């Protein structure tokens, strides 16, 4: 290995990188946009359920009952109708996601201490939001029921159990606290893996790789010359995202920063190795990009627990996820940043990450070298 040759290679690589006036700004702006979108939008909270109201009773009691919904802050009455038959069209036409129907004599029945019926229709095509909305409906109706009961009995309340929730690590249950640290993981993977593989394959495509091969540069030097620039860019990018997370989103790193950084280098081994590997199996940049995007990045994102808990997956996928390095790095990033735990809770993840990183990198380097010969 010759230091001078590596330096010359690095110069050339950085020169190329800076020559492309759009690439570097994009590499840095993209994660910040991602951070903003994920930070503000990626929430399963259901706050503003749009509903159509069909109050066929129109008494003080029915209005009081409806008020319970509107005052809860979760429901907005967007439409009112007296035509029961038209309700279907409100849901069909995607105008609202819920219908509340109060039949005639609702108030009378309540006053006569008879059970009063109401009907709730929810749009199930919204999936998870429907489940959450149903929970709210249930709570509101039970609490209204109980206040009527208390009136009947003549006490202030009829008792019952009140569950007071406290969420650890993230008391306000902001989903951004969960999603934003995940971006740190994605950024590293995208910049190092995708860009490294594309940069190498580009030389193959244009034929400059063959030119390099006839120079005294050794394969190891070539690999280093290719990997070092994107490692640096990846790390700088990671730091930018970290600063944006702490300053912009107010999510502090609870644990030790050196620990976080150290374990990040373990993950770098994996992502660089994967980039190198993808470059050995691709002939065109299109191939390299699609291989890393669809066969590495996407599956990793879904199986690693990036946005959906691993425990919910089928057993086979859960087992498979043990072989996904991103899984361990995600746990590390989230635990150190949000929980502030130390290495004692993370030695298994750190070990797995290091082991996989070394394996992937060594295998890829060997493959790359044998491909060159």
């Amino acid at each position, binding site marked *: 290995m010759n230091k001078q040759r590596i330096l010359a290679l690095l110069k050339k690589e950085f020169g190329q990188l800076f020559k492309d006036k759009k690439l570097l700004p*994009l590499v840095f702006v993209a994660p910040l946009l991602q951070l903003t979108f994920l930070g503000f939008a990626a929430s399963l909270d259901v706050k503003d359920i749009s509903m159509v109201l069909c109050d066929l009773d129109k008494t003080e009691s029915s209005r009081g009952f409806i008020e319970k919904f509107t005052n809860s802050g979760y429901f907005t009455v967007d439409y009112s109708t007296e035509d029961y038959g038209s309700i279907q069209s409100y849901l069909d036409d995607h105008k609202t996601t819920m219908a509340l129907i109060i039949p005639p004599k609702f108030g009378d029945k309540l006053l006569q201490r008879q059970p009063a019926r109401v009907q709730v229709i929810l749009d199930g095509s919204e999936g998870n939001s429907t489940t959450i909305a149903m929970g709210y409906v249930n709570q509101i109706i039970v609490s209204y029921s109980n206040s009527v009961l208390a009136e009947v009995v003549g006490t202030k309340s009829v008792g019952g159990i009140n569950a007071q929730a406290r969420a650890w690590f993230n008391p306000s249950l902001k989903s951004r606290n969960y999603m934003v640290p995940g971006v740190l993981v994605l950024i590293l993977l995208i910049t190092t893996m995708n860009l490294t593989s594309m940069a190498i394959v580009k030389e193959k495509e244009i034929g400059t790789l063959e030119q390099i091969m006839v120079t005294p540069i050794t394969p190891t030097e070539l690999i280093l010359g290719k990997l070092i620039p994107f490692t640096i860019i990846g790390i700088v990018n990671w730091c930018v995202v970290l600063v944006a997370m702490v300053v912009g989103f107010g999510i502090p790193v609870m644990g030790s920063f050196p620990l976080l950084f150290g374990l990040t280098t373990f993950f770098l081994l994996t992502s660089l190795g994967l980039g190198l590997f993808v470059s050995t199996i691709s002939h065109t940049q299109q191939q390299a990009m699609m291989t890393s995007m669809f066969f590495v990045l996407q599956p990793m994102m879904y199986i690693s627990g990036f946005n959906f808990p691993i425990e919910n997956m089928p057993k086979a996928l859960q087992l498979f996820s043990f072989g996904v390095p991103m899984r361990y790095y995600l746990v590390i990033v989230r635990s150190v940043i949000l929980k502030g735990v130390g290495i004692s809770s993370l030695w298994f993840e750190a070990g797995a990450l290091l082991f996989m990183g070394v394996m992937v990198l060594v295998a890829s380097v060997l493959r790359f070298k044998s491909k060159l010969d």
Partner: protein
Amino acid sequence: MLRRLLPIIKKEFRQIRRDKRVLAILTLVPALLLLLNGYALNYDVSHIKMAVIDQENSKESRDFLNAFVTSGYFDYVQYLKSTDEAMHMIDDARIRAAIVIPTDFSHKLLSGEITDIQVLVDGMDSNAASIILGYVQAVTLQYSQKIVLKNLSKIGRGNYLPIQYDARVWYNPELKSAKFLVPGLIGFILAITAVIATSLSIVKEKERNTIEQIDVSPISSVELIVGKMIPYALISLVAAALVIVAAYFLFDVVVKGSYLWLFGSTLLFVIAALSIGLFVSTISDSQQVAFQLASLTSMLPTMILSGFMFPIRSMPWWLQILTNITPAKFYLVILRSIILKGVGLAAFWDQLVYLMIFTTVMLTISARRFKKTLS
């Protein structure tokens, strides 16, 4: 025009066919992603590991805790002595939630007072935590009502339930996650493949300077654009069809509405995605830039802003406005209407109009820019 168009389409197809892997990726990966997504994307939290700190340990408290176990959501109950212990276990991710029962639980419960219990949840995964809290609330509410009615019947006022309600869920009564995710996945997958594939294929010609050769030929830029787009539109449509077939076999998702409208709106959406790809290609000089830009303009908005995973109405107002930059938002409503609701044009014509406007505007801008970059 057709005479000159055909050779370009042929050339493009030949190029795509020669690269077997890219063709395979474009047609088969969408169905593969569906398989992966369909199983991995699951909001239904089950087997929640829970610990219990029962400071009273009475018949009533045990009965209450039993309700959690029998609910089926909570998998494993371990008895702990203190909240500190529970906190340590949450730290190490050994449990997800803990319930603390106070010493006066049964006393308050039986005397008709409001009894507070404490629930500790691991808030790290906030979405899962919200769902877990929802389950805790539901189990508590149900048990609580049972006790309230029991207490009332003791004083002869029992068996009266002021409000009886029946909740119905339309379109997806079992609330299966896969069912409502499939339409979103179709949009997501189409957006990625169409935007990335077109932009890369055009920029590739730029990189190799073959685009200048075409430029000096009698082919007009419109013909070039159309010729480039048609093959990728066809491939995307095949991919979409495969996803729908896969969704039927894997997740029992049946298209309830009209296939004709499904095809029409999909074609429109694909054209929208292709024009975004074209736009990206006019800005990028290298495939690396094209890839970055394409994934930024297709993957991110389609996944996060389209309403595919996260409800738009819960976003901050400025982001709600921004959601209009992604055609997937409109396409998703159409897809859900056709596939899940089985409703006709009357229900989604407005979305179709938005999609049409978006496509026209995007296509015009991109074509203009493309012409300019050529000359």
